[in-house]
């Protein structure tokens, strides 16, 4: 059976992409010039082995960067060990901010 070729008018089902307004973080979030004498916070999201990976990064920082202070956030406050919609509420962000880290190194995924 030969199917009929038709002229179709169709609607694209993708929908326009609506991204939230981009925040101007370029200036606020400038990188430190050095980590010497600075605080580096390590952020684990509870996924398997992320803590071991980050701990090793912490060891290497301590070995190779003079006077760096490494903080494992999950040991300081287990509530930082979260992912999902309710994770990392404002009070947790504030706690991390109060530690004055030069950078936070986090692990993502499995």
């Amino acid at each position, binding site marked *: 059976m030969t199917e009929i070729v038709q002229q179709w008018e169709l*609607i694209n*089902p993708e929908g326009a992409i609506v991204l939230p307004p981009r925040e101007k973080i370029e200036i606020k*979030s400038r*990188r430190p*010039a050095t980590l010497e004498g600075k605080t580096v916070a390590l952020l684990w999201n509870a996924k398997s082995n992320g803590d071991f*990976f980050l701990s090793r990064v912490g060891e290497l920082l301590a070995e190779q960067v003079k006077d760096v202070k490494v903080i494992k956030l999950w040991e300081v406050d287990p509530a*930082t060990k979260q*992912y999902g919609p309710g994770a990392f509420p404002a009070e947790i962000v504030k706690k991390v901010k109060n530690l004055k880290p030069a*950078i936070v190194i986090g692990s993502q995924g499995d």
Partner: protein
Amino acid sequence: MNQSKLEKEGIPTLTIATTAFTELARASMAGTGVPDMSFVVVEHPMGGISKEQIRAKADAAFPEILKMALEWRPQGAEVPPSNPAYPAERFKFAGTIEDVNKLTFEKGWSLGLPIVPPTPERVKAMLKGTSRSPHEVLWVVPPRNGALTVELLAVHAAMAGCKPEYMPLLITIMNAFREESYDWIGTATTTGSEAPMVMVNGPILKELGIAYDSGCLAGGNHANVSMGYTINLIGAVVGGSVASTHIDRSVLGSRANIIAYFFGENEDANPWEPYHVEKGFKPTDNVITVMSGDFIPLQELHCRTGTEVLTTLSSYLGGGARCFGGGAFVGPGSSKSYFLVLSPERAAILAKDGWTKNAIRKYIVEHAKTQYGATTPKWCAIPKDFGPVTPETLVPVFGKPEEIQIVVAGGPGTHSAYVRGGHGSIVTKLIKK
């Protein structure tokens, strides 16, 4: 993504992502309003390998981590202007119906099943099912952040073969999915096999012919199947969560990622009050309840008393939660939502023996247990007052009776099911026509 919240507070971050999760991490970032973040990509996997392998992976990545920590600068690229959300783009195409389906599949506009071509006429007819304005944005569907207007919902409903009278129900479902507590992005991108579940209560069940009795999760019912298909079309096409683009990272996925779990409560066979009445709605209200989860069959054939039923089900439930890492004491990021979907016959036995829903919940909390050694220790945070544990210590799977939702669905027979919640929470909403 937690790091984006820190970036917004002016705290520089660096994210370690594995090769399998880089696209998802970047898509998640884009949806938070952060223009750019630094990533160091390491070979997948991170989990399930030895400490020595993890150490070697960290050692190999460390020079890049150090370099990126100091030298990375945000690109801050401008977002290309997007087309308006309404009206959706129209285009001409010449071909057979088969060609239309080939086109939609190749463009990522279908899930492999045939679709009904979304012509303006069909969409206009679908929009007659609602008084809502077609330009209204119902939901910006993550992680792609596609704008789901009422018109676009009608497009997908038409593609899935829905009837116009389904529109109010579909609009309510979209309103439920967009709730932050549902965590659509978590359920749509997880490595797990969880899928959207919709349960319907109220007179609308019979008005629309929604299946709630024998085989209510199977095929053969137009309302359940077409609305279940609509949900996942929207998630994939508007939300962009598909495996082929490495955004949906489900290891196996589920057939319910094609046709979502969609069923009605069998209120006629429910010896207790229906679920929506238990939650404070009137019996005459039409209500939907959504959750992300996996249906796990609870097969039993020979129980004669309520206690026998619950003993058997508790044994199943103790095992069923093991792989999820500890149940009652499970850690953050994990759902504590569960549905026990009782077959009418099992509900009748329990009710005849005097079991109330609350008594059933309490029994299950006390009896559904698993060995501590079978849990994921880092996620199974034993309370201090629990006492010492060994790998053989039995720990409860459920923390509180109220975590267990009890509903009745299906037809004659003994088999029940357990829906293990994945990401997010249960959301219940009144359907407004």
